[in-house]
């Protein structure tokens, strides 16, 4: 299990999503990716994509217009 961090501060959609997809492609079962974002559009796109892809996804609001998106690759795909 490993945690990775992806900094997408200052980046507008769809860049954070494209980078997240790329990063998740390199992850193993049980790994956690934390994405830092400050564009609200990514809050709509990234969790939507991640959940549809079968990952678990939660968001922490870390400040005014700043979020951490936590995406976990499950050991077995949950539904």
């Amino acid at each position, binding site marked *: 299990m490993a945690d990775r961090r992806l900094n997408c501060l200052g980046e507008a959609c769809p860049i954070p999503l494209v980078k997240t997809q790329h990063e998740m492609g390199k992850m193993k079962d049980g790994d956690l990716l934390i994405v830092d974002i400050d564009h609200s*559009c990514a809050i*709509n*796109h990234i969790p939507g994509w991640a959940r549809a892809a079968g990952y678990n996804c939660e968001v922490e609001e870390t400040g005014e217009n700043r979020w951490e998106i936590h995406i976990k690759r499950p050991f077995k795909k949950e539904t």
Partner: protein
Amino acid sequence: MEKKHEQYDVVIIGGGAAGLSAGIYAGRAGLKTLIIEKTLIGGLANNANEISNYPGFPEEISGEELMKLFKKQAEKFGVKFKLTDVKKVDLIPEDKTVETFSNIYHARAVIVASGGQPRLTGAAGEERFLYGRGISFCATCDADHYIGKHVLIVGSGDAAIEEGIFLTRFTDQVTVSVMHSEGVMDAGRIVQAQALANPKMKFRWNTVVDSFVGKEELTAVVLKNIKTGELSPVEVDGCFLFIGYEPDTELFKEQLPMTADGYLVTDEQMQTGVPGVFAAGDVRQKFIRQVSTAVGDGAIAGAGAEKHIYVKDGKAVCVE
């Protein structure tokens, strides 16, 4: 992984206008209140670029600004927020549970304010272009990607036509795919007239989407004429779908009464029929789905939750 258990008086599912309004009432009544939201606090109204019919804002306000104010007011009354999706609920027992990926929340009362999701066309290729790859549901959010470009709008209701007119401020051309015969739209008359008079708006009557085409990003939408069956590709830089909404009620099947199309049925007090479970906002079967009506529902549901619970020896108990 062990899930963490937490106790609340009221758990509200959905942080749109209805959930926030319910939160303000429950929080102000001194109840320990949690709002769980799976995307952005503010819900669907975040997509509205101008709200001119919500009383108190005669100068118009963007949906996002208005929702920030709602949130601030809820926070003032001590409402807590958690940004994650609810995966499972058990609403029938007195000790109700609402489960997320890492937590199990226990509550005396649950308010369902989960609104709805934009409807998809179901056409070939659609999945590939969702989430910022060319198919969008929010003109305010995405308009600036399309400066000087060509976009297609699917739908002819108020949202479709109003958002189309808004997009002409940025784009070179807006083509609207309408499934009805020439000149027939579902939008109100005033907006229709504005759209028809707008030189940047073109209409493709009698059409529905056949497929979405492109490599990484969307480059064309193939429209099908429903009268002749003829297929015609329209080259576009982006496409906006405004073909209605579906209520987000999958989680509540077999626990709460709903209509055939999935809207939750309540009485005038927003009660679902299951003691301590209320529904508010767009998710309900009702006459008009607006911010103002969502706020009204939320107020009633929040007050209803307060009536359902009373505090005894510093502990919240349910009224029998």
